[in-house]
């Protein structure tokens, strides 16, 4: 079981979040039986359809009552329930280390979301995996269901550090190929990448029938850009620095930010990504709750 002493886990928040089950928006393809809809027929109690008997079918599944009424052989099929494979992709590039004074870094914030998600998934018997990515896949933990696995997950999260520049689109492409189809892929990042490239990666994930969710983490200072005196900005993902008179550039910065956010909005609409823009100044409970409740409403079809 997890240790209560994990700094990124708040039992009270987890208990509140646990009241809302985690659902995928589409039918998932798990390893074992579970509580989520599967695209395949199975042995659940939920009737799916009748189908003509073909040689080779299990005779135990023939519906004799239907044979009695129609004098034809029909096989009665039931929906299959499966578990959920949740792949959490946490961006650990340099930019995720940014934080306003007294606030959590985006990595810390993302760590809390990832841990909470892992906990919630594990609690309902779903498999959960973790990928720490920056310029490459720093660490990849495939989805598993065991309680011990959750500990490994938390340990990995705890030891995660920011490093390097973001190459999220390429890495998402790689994950789309490596993660088995029909998984819940949750991306936690600041998405400071080229929107066009990101769009291609998200489309790739969608093509692989993954249920893609994205937590877009933004710091309040990145949004407000409130500086009083000249600042030399040093890029956290490289050695670039820029001397700026904030009063002069604030307007244009805001314009660039707005353009970027609109572009992001357009991309997530086009790629049907479950998109959550989050300011790190708010408690992570709120975006998590919105995420879970939203999925309850849009509970997936088979």
């Amino acid at each position, binding site marked *: 079981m997890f240790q209560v002493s994990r700094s990124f886990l708040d039992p009270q928040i987890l208990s509140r979040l646990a009241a809302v089950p985690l659902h995928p928006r589409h039918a998932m393809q798990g390893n074992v039986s579970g509580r989520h809809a599967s695209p395949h027929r199975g042995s659940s109690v939920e009737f799916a359809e009748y189908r003509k008997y073909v040689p080779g079918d299990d005779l135990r599944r023939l519906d004799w009552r239907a044979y009695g009424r129609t004098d034809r052989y029909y096989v009665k099929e039931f929906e299959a329930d499966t578990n959920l494979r949740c792949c959490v992709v946490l961006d650990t590039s340099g930019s995720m280390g940014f934080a306003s004074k007294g606030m959590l870094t*985006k990595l810390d914030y993302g760590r809390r979301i990832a841990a909470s998600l892992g906990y919630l998934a594990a609690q309902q018997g779903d498999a959960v995996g973790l990928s720490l990515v920056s310029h490459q896949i720093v660490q990849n933990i495939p989805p598993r269901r065991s309680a011990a696995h959750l500990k490994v997950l938390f340990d990995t999260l705890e030891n995660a550090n920011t490093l390097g520049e973001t190459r999220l689109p390429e890495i998402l492409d790689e994950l789309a190929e490596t993660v088995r189809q029909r998984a819940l892929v949750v991306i936690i990042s600041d998405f400071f990448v080229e929107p066009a490239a990101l769009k291609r990666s998200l489309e790739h994930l969608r093509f692989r029938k993954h249920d893609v969710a994205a937590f877009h983490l933004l710091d309040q200072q990145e949004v407000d850009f409130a500086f009083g005196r*000249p600042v030399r900005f*040093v890029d956290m993902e490289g050695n670039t620095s*820029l001397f700026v008179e904030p009063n002069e550039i604030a*307007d244009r910065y805001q314009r*660039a930010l707005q353009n*970027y956010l609109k572009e992001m909005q357009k991309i*997530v609409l086009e790629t049907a990504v479950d998109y959550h823009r989050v*300011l790190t100044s708010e408690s992570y409970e709120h975006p998590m709750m919105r995420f879970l409740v939203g999925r309850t409403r849009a509970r997936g079809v088979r």
Partner: protein
Amino acid sequence: MSFLQPWMLLALPLAAIPIVIHLVNQRRFQTVPWAAMRFLLEANRMSSGYTRLRQWLILAMRTLAVLALVLFTARPLTSGIMALLNGESGTQAIVILDRSPSMGDRLPNSNRTRLESAIDQLSSTFQTLGIQRIIQLDEATGKPEEFASLNQWLRAVPRTPWSATSDIPGLLEQALVYAKNNPVGNSVVWIGSDLREADWRSRDGRWAAVRDGFKSLPQNIRFSVLDLSSDRTEDRSIRVTNAQCIDNSETPTLSISFRIDRTSGSDAVSIPVEIAIGNSRTSLDVNASASGAQVNDYRLPLPAVDGSATEGIRGWGWVKIPSDGNPSNDISYFAFEQPPLRRTVIVSNTPDLVAAIELCASIAPQQTIRCESELVTPSQLPSVPLDGVALLVWNDDLPTGDLLEIVQSFVHSGGQVLLVPPENPNDNVAFGFQWKEWKDVGGVARGTPTGVDEDAASNTRISQWQNDSELLANTLNGAPLPLGQLSIRRLCAFDGRATALASMADGQPILAVLENDGPRETAGSMVICATTPSDRDSTLAGDGVVLYVAIQRMLAAGARRAATIKQGVAGVNRDWVQATSLLIAGDEAATTTEYAMHAGIYDSNKSLVALDRGLREDESSTVDESALGTMFGELNWARVGVEGRSNGIIQEIWRWFVILMLAALILEALLCLPRLRRGPVLPSTHRS
């Protein structure tokens, strides 16, 4: 621009504080690790024109605000254009003060006259500008007076107007002479005046000389006209137009005519007028219309003052109305005397020839005037006293020897001489003049038998005469004398330096004034009549109007030499009154050297002199801006102290700097306001 606290200008460098802060701020940057670098780089690539301009504007507004604050604390002073004028004025000023009577008008809501206001404003200005050396141009003495300090000038400057009309172009000529003769450097000529046309004489030909003179000076002389013409209130003035003694009854009386003028009255009012004759007073109420009133021939019995049987009657007096805003025109002085006897002495051996002249000289034109004539032979002349004689008619051979001296002395003392040709002129020469022979003009006169052609008749007519001369001037109603109706049948040619007053068609003078070498001011005139009044020679006697008028005009001119009173105008008849004269009535505060400039009654060399204020002082017209521009032309001039500046030429303008500072701060604040965002920064945070 000048400042009351100029030392505060030492703080002017503080205006650089915003710039210094800006520069320090540029160096005092902080280093911030930044994640959203892509937005910064993108923003850096965007156009920054307006933003950069805004930043510079903000910096400029901040600098301007500090600058305005410093200037405000220094208490700036200005007088509009005068601020520029005073830029290089140095520490001296040339002052011209208009001391005409109209400058004695009191300003509304103030006890100060315009002259006092001018002095106060100039004093305040000089003190503010630090002017120490003041050159005051004095119209009375005609000499500039220099003062080494402002206090010295304030102690000496007269604060009461005089009665003479100012002569601004004349004073500027004085200033020009002073500037030429003294190293004044760049200076300002301050002219304090109420801009009366009478004082400025905008059409005076001297203005051109003044302009050219100042333009030719190497130094830069500027002119500041301190305008005190505003806020005129109703003003009443009184002026005696005639005062004469009538002595044709047992009780001699004074006939006095006077005029009351009102500048801006609207209703008819009754104005009490006080009349003083010597030490006796009387008063009457005059109903005045909106424009004023005219009182003619108001008669008062003369008290037994200053008169005796031997000296005749003479006296002085004044008329006065209650004081108003301008007391200097509320009184008018006059002097009077019994008109002297107009005596004529006719020297002739042929009484028939001069009978008409004798008759004309004996008939008085008015009841109040007495005339008498005496016919003598040349040999009797030395025994005739000529002291009281006004006209001497000489109808004989030209005098020589003692007789010539007697006649010359008579002329030099102001007597009038009429030379009429004798029947047989000889070769005598007197006064550079000589009679020639008689000659017939030809033709016949009006009323004579016909049979002569019209050309011949026209030759006997006087074809031209000078009606601007005193002798042949038009009558009071403007009609010319009927000289053209006279017919001259015979005339005596003459030789000498003479100015023709009337001439025949062929240019032969019939009436001329002989030039004499006597003093121009006091000498009488010698008139030549080239014919006689006898019917044989002319129709002067038949058409006697011309002869009578000419004889009476010569008598009037000659009678003035016997007069013991003089009625004149202050500032014009300056020679009548000297510093040694005795002031009988008038402004007792006037200094003796300025007697000639003040109205009043003076005893000067046993003559009673009545000086009244300038005739043009009753005109209220003023010169406007365009007229000033015409007068000063291309000279550097400015009009100050106009409407709304009655409290001083120099004014504190700190309010403008406060407004400027506030405006700069408000503008800076507006520029610093963040732009309104059209929507939330995070328009949509969730999409599922």
